[in-house]
């Protein structure tokens, strides 16, 4: 059945049993529809494709090692990823965030580069050549599995906006040293996407990233050990 005709059929069916206005009847309708079209589950869900189109354009980027990669195909697809924006000469918020993500990488251990991938995309692609980014990686002693990326300025701007890593205050958004400190994390295959603040406590960030592991989501929770600030703590 074509998409359009099925949709019409569903819309048509929806009117009659729900006219009474009782949402409880929807579960009966659910069974009815599954009976009519047992493959509904598979045929209907195009959401992964929609999510890809909306948020992850397949632009070509260059890694700090000079390798040309496709943003969706090579970096995002089927992976658990952590994505932020920075630039090499940034003396503002990048400094604490890079240091914090370095702690995150250390805590995640050898999973980084195996099933969890970290990406930092430059906000100044005109300045940040692959060589400069490579120098940045060496200078900060960052381990493999965390890739720094540059590309065409227009396309990087689109990527940044599509991922929501900008501020809607247009004046503030132009001040690059104060760029957005949020970091996107997610599991592409599962369409689980959220963000964490780049300056949050590293162990807490690690906990968040590990939820994106399918096994972890189903695992029974453990009691948390609270970290208590000292009496009369001043800041």
């Amino acid at each position: 059945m074509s998409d359009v005709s099925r949709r019409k059929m569903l819309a048509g069916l929806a009117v009659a049993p729900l006219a009474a206005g009782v949402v409880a009847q929807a579960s009966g309708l659910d069974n009815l529809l599954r009976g009519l079209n047992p493959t509904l589950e598979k045929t209907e869900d195009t959401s992964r494709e929609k999510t890809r189109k909306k948020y992850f354009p397949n632009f070509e980027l260059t890694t700090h090692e000079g390798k040309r990669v496709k943003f969706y195909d090579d970096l995002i697809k089927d992976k658990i990823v952590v994505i932020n924006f920075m630039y090499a000469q940034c003396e503002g918020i990048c400094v604490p965030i890079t240091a914090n993500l370095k702690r995150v990488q250390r805590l995640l251990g050898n999973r980084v580069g195996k099933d969890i991938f970290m990406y930092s995309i430059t906000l100044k692609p005109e300045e940040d050549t692959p060589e400069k980014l490579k120098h940045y990686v060496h200078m900060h002693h960052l381990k493999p599995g965390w890739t720094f990326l540059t590309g065409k300025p227009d396309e990087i701007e689109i990527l940044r906006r599509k991922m929501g890593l900008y501020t809607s205050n247009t004046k503030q958004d132009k001040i690059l040293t104060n760029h957005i400190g949020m970091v996107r994390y997610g599991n592409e295959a599962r369409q689980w996407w959220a963000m964490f603040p780049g300056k949050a406590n590293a162990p807490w960030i690690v906990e968040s990233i590990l939820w994106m592991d399918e096994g972890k989501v189903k695992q029974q929770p453990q009691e948390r050990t609270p970290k208590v600030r000292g009496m009369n703590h001043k800041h």
Partner: protein
Amino acid sequence: MANISKRDRRREREIANAAKNRREIIAAQLNRRDMMKAGLLTSAGYLIHKSGLSARAQFSGDCDNRWRDGSGGNGTPVSPPTTPFLEPMPIPPVAQPVAALTPVPQINPNTAAGEARTRPHQAFAQFVPQKLYEVHQREVLISMHPQLPLQRLWTFNGTAPGQTYVARYGEPILVRNFNDLPANNGGFGLQSVSTHLHNGHTPSESDGFPCDFFGQGNFYDQHYPNVLAGINSSHPGTGDILESMSTLWYHDHRVDFTAQNVYKGLAGFYLLFNNFDTGNETTGFRLPTYPDFDIPMMFNDKNFDPDDGLLAFDLANRDGILGDKFLVNGKIQPFFNVKRRRYRFRWLNGGPSRFYRFYLTKTGNTNHPFWIISNDGNLLKNPVQTTTGLFIAVAERMDVIVDFSSFAAGSVIHLENRLEQCDGAGPTNNILPAGQGNKVLEFRVVSDAVNDQSVNPATNPTFYQVPTRVTERIKRCFKFDRDNGQWVINDKLFDCNDVRFKVKRNTAEIWQLEGGFDWSHPIHIHFEEHQVLKRNGNTPTLIERGRKDVIRLGEGDDVEIYFRFRDFVGRYPMHCHNTIHEDHAMMLRFDIDDVGNDNENDCGRR
């Protein structure tokens, strides 16, 4: 039957044209530079808000003049057109108890059987559950409008909003809450949940703390004692009757994923009755009888994909999601038949981000006054009449009395939101002219015989006095702000494991909440209701003067509240209830114990 005015038709056409224009732009594969050249896109990357491109084109113009650049997300889709007022407003079914649960509920977490709770019930033996419920969170296909396809919603026992719990003070219950949600989320949502009862006097382990989430295949026993604050402290054995609550709701609270999971359907009502608020208009306060004339209404605004009509959630939005379709109890713009008498409506702003100011608009765009009797589930001292609408922030509940007796059978009255809001940052505070706002619901007066024994609010009945205060142990101050696009409270970021301060059980405190620049936040604090002492140095309005659990913080607002923390211990959060802000870490954790500490008491640093 559906009475579509010329204005509505014009609006629908406008929306349809806007959607068509956008689709044509996409089809033509215009790139960014082409669109900027053509004047269709701002340098900031958004389709220009002008007539024909935006569904909000009829607004005052302020939306175009603000420096903010639009949705704050990945563009707001323009939903497909839908004909308003085609279907009746659904009323969620009442939850029915089960005879027994297997295995039998126990004080310690039954980890072996798959229970995800990590801490023992602290009040189970004292308040033994008299009714048991079993709820399964699962995906169901549901229609939100007959002209849109069925939606894959996440439900409590098959409905969204979920089933309504009808509870009574003095009758403890236990809900066994199963997570049967699918891994395949259809684009958004996480099959990991924590169900919060907002705002029960609930021990921490049953409260639905954001970090007490559990995965698919597990269950969680939530014990709701249904007791008044003070039962183990200031008012032993009874609790303080002046702390009675009426309209509560429950919703998912999974840290980082609350907005997605609630947008997908995980929310419902929880009503509490007692010997005064009886649910029977011939007894107690004589409020309109439940369920015939006492009607819960959950408001949500949502977006739908212009191409396939499926529910759309912008994963890139950090400011707040505004929908262009308005739903009541899960249906887009339904109608509701009313008799010529008084009704109690329990209005709940279910989010995700929009602020409403509701008016009742009669034929000829005139305003029908109504009475407010309760704020955040707390009956006021006396009813307050409004002729200027009623403001409701996300998560706030406002119970109102609407009298339809003056209308002839066949009359039509619209519930209309006239508050202008352009983006997730907050409303402009412009009030749109009557008839030009968002009509969310159509009341149709029917000619049935009328019998109304409910109290007339005009006789000024007294409900509950504001509870008396005791001396506070400490004052704490909280400033809500932004740091590089990250939400901070007193300059710090959220961490589930970070106890920011400790409150000593059975003491009182003063908290001062201060809003930052250019943002509006509905701040919710779990556990007891608080009292608003001062708003920007002034005595609060009659409506805000009583007990509350959501505080509106507009730009630069400064609100002082009084709090007691009685009877139970454990962890609770304070957070913004714009669920998009909440999911981007606008939250802190505090714990109640028998020692307490003095953290976050630096009130002089401003």
